[in-house]
């Protein structure tokens, strides 16, 4: 029986429980001599929760437990044979059995295959026709094991289903019996709701933990085969994708060219975005009339709403060729700016960052108290002097925080650099040449067919970890500065 059907049955039991509980409570309340505690539908909900929640928890625990149990039982059947065979590890063999079992499910119940073919050669084309590709070194002896696996899974699923339904019925029964006028159904229901709300808000923690652990494990894996100094101190990026099955060579995984490219492009972007964004924010906060502001501000914010892939395409199709042609016209020969270059990527990323800089700084500038402005103007300073000598110094910590946030966004930006910065891991100071970034290499290493054990793919997680730590550090520092600044005026 499928999970969906089981879920429907359990929810159905819960709904029936709600209706019965509600009716029973109404009956009791109508005839009760004492003052009832909760309204009837709270009793109904309590029955519903008692029926559904334990059954759901049981289902989750059972499916995880039975999966682990079946896996263990299957891998116990494997050992003697895998020792001397060509299959490297037991987990690989286990994966093949799983794949085979999944394929065998597709021909289950097909009268043509009442007797499952016992040889891999026979089975492979049959399964391929049904969309399951088998690994080429799958062994014949795995077929009975796979059949066994399916049988065990079926058994476990059946027992689990029966137990889950029994638990749901038991819960509903208990709930119905507990319906009394004085029983505190509302408090019970509300407690469950509060726990549910708490559970929802812990998802943020779980996500962070998930990010850190998933990357940490793979990074540790990576550093088992590649030395720390190769990664952190290496100046050459040459991961050497080995052909599948071939002896994987140790490539060179130097982080430095990638980090340099990332920082350089982000720097060019900030060099462009900060003056433009800051001046735009100052003008809108201090000079612009209400009407101009109400038109210009949303228009600039449109820039923030445009997906980065669109910026990437703009850089690739318009800005890159434009810069190349201009440099060709100036040099009179082949241009000195390449179509994919630090300048192209930085410029377009800068455009993307303008609205971030301007709206963050706008908020900070308007937060500077009116009295400081009035004091300065009253002493005879012009508006620009007030801005330069009074408002900006007062807003400086906040603006620095905002710039740090923007810079961390520039470092983590992916699509623009994927399309506009190039893939060659150069180490250069010339902004007219292509450089590559951490994010580009993460994408490069992880698109296409991959094998999760080779350092060539695992390096992406080490890069991701570096990126995460880098941006996290900048964000924490930025928040710290912003928070410190806020205290000055409150």
């Amino acid at each position: 029986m499928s999970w969906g059907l089981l879920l429907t049955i359990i929810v159905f039991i819960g709904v029936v429980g709600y209706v019965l509980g509600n009716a029973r409570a109404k009956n009791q309340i109508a005839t009760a001599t004492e003052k009832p505690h909760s309204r009837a539908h709270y009793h109904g909900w309590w029955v519903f929760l008692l029926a559904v929640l334990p059954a759901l928890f049981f289902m989750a625990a059972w499916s995880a437990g039975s999966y682990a149990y079946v896996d263990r039982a299957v891998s116990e059947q494997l050992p003697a044979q895998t020792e001397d065979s060509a299959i490297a590890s037991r987990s690989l063999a286990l994966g093949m059995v799983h794949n085979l079992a999944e394929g065998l499910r597709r021909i289950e119940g097909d009268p043509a295959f009442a007797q499952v073919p016992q040889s891999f050669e026979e089975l492979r084309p049959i399964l391929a026709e049904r969309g399951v590709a088998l690994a080429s070194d799958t062994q014949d002896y795995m077929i009975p094991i796979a059949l066994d696996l399916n049988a065990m899974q079926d058994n476990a699923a059946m027992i689990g289903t029966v137990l889950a339904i029994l638990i749901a019925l038991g819960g509903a029964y208990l709930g119905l019996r507990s319906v009394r006028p004085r029983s505190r159904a509302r408090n019970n229901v509300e407690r469950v709701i509060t726990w549910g709300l708490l559970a929802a808000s812990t998802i943020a923690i779980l996500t962070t933990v998930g990010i850190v652990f998933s990357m940490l494990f793979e990074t540790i894996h990576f550093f088992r085969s590649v030395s720390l100094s190769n990664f952190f101190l290496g100046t050459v990026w040459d991961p050497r994708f080995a052909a599948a099955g071939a002896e994987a060579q140790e490539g060179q995984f130097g982080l430095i060219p990638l980090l340099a490219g990332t920082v350089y492009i982000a720097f060019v972007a900030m060099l462009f975005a900060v003056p433009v964004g800051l001046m735009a924010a100052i003008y809108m906060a201090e000079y612009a009339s209400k009407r101009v502001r109400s038109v210009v501000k949303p228009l600039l914010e449109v820039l923030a709403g445009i997906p980065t892939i669109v910026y990437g395409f703009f850089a690739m199709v318009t800005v890159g060729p434009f810069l190349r042609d201009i440099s060709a016209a100036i040099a009179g020969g082949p241009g000195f700016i390449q179509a994919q270059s630090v300048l192209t990527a930085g410029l377009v990323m800068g455009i993307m960052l303008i609205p971030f800089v301007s709206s963050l700084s706008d908020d900070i500038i308007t937060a500077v108290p009116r009295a400081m402005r009035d004091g300065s103007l009253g002493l005879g300073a012009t508006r620009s002097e007030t801005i330069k000598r009074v408002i900006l110094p007062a807003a400086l910590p906040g603006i620095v925080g905002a710039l740090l946030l923007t810079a961390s966004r520039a470092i983590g930006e992916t699509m623009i650099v994927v399309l506009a910065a190039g893939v060659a891991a150069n180490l250069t100071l010339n902004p007219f040449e292509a450089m590559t970034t951490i994010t580009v290499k993460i994408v490069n290493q992880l698109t296409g067919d991959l094998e999760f054990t080779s350092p060539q793919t695992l390096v992406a997680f080490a890069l991701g970890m570096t990126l995460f730590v880098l941006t996290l550090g900048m964000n924490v520092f930025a928040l710290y500065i912003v928070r410190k600044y806020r205290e000055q005026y409150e």
Partner: protein
Amino acid sequence: MSDAVYKGGNAPRAAAARRDIGIKKRYAAEQRFRMYGVAAIAVGLFFLAALLWSVVSNGYTAFWQTSINLDVTFAESVIDPNGERATDPNKLLTANYPKLATEALVAKLGVDPENRKLVREVGGLISNGVRTQLRDMVVSDPAIIGTTRNVWVLASGDVDSAVKGQVNLEVDESRRKVSDQQLTWIRTMEADGVLEQRFNTGLFTRGASSRPETAGMGVAIVGSLYMMMIVLLLALPIGVAASIYLEEFAPQNKLTDLIEVNINNLAAVPSIVFGLLGLAVFINFMHLPRSASLVGGLVLTLMTLPTIIIATRAALRAVPPSIRAAALGLGASRTQTVFHHVLPLAAPGILTGTIIGLAQALGETAPLLLIGMVAFVADYPTTPLDPATALPVQIYMWANEAERAFVERTSGAIMVLLLFLAVMNITAIILRRRVERRW
């Protein structure tokens, strides 16, 4: 007594030259500073205009596609020369349909059918997509075999580019993909109304294809829709529940602080990191299928959750405490207060935040690349577990294609994406203006 002596006669003080306080210079500086501000805004707006103009000027032609009107004779001698279709249904699937179209066009242009070279050039005018088009016609109604039908077929991508004027005709014939002979045919057919640009419905309905003229973003739109549904179904309830807890129930303790710090940090984590999370957790650990919109939806949910939580908390905070006090005073429990009174009043703000979060998720590309959405998917996914692709990923894939015709398609797809985003954001703005209450 003072030693001061009045020496100046009655020269008035006003006659003395005013002390020079550099007022002119200061005013000039003021003017300059103001100009910098105007210039900055102008630069920002200029780039916005340049971006939009670049996309539209490259892309508006994608909505029209050159087609050729043919009287195709479904000759039995070509489709099924040995009369086997009753016994072997595969015959109808594998027949040489392009030959039918080529023959029809050869007849229309009056080319000698024996001249192999010319016939090949005529065949080059027609898209290879004609194979599936004619096949589907025959398979759905085998009775048309032996009859002649008037059909609009797609011209090949190179012809389409030539008709739209995107091919440089100055270049020597050997170095361009459309020959002079083909150009003459195109001109005559255009004059006869046989060849014309028609609205490109295929762009919205077809799936991936390696030929620009038959490539469409239908599959990508469906994939994106699935993902948006998953994000809405998961992120909205979870986000609202988390915000309610943090705003209304959470005690001041370490756990609450930890949750708050985490939400703020997640909002600033680069999106590609979420892709790595999805790859490691959903695909490697939980064995969900690669390229499935379910995985994409889950990753985007985690990514938009902080946005929705932050917006919802702001909306909840905007509800004045007097509402809560009144409800509590009348004997409602805290849960009842929140769910019966605070939440309905905050609903417009929550909805606005959700729409903005969804728009963000719709345009996100990087995490989807890592979980295998870069896939050549020609068939519509029927469930969220089937391989699918997403609109921005489709744009990325087309952007990597070399042919000129794909630049046009990419820009067209971007226009569609931007249109979706604009509609969502404008809805959010209108909602905010119309429904949101000022306390």
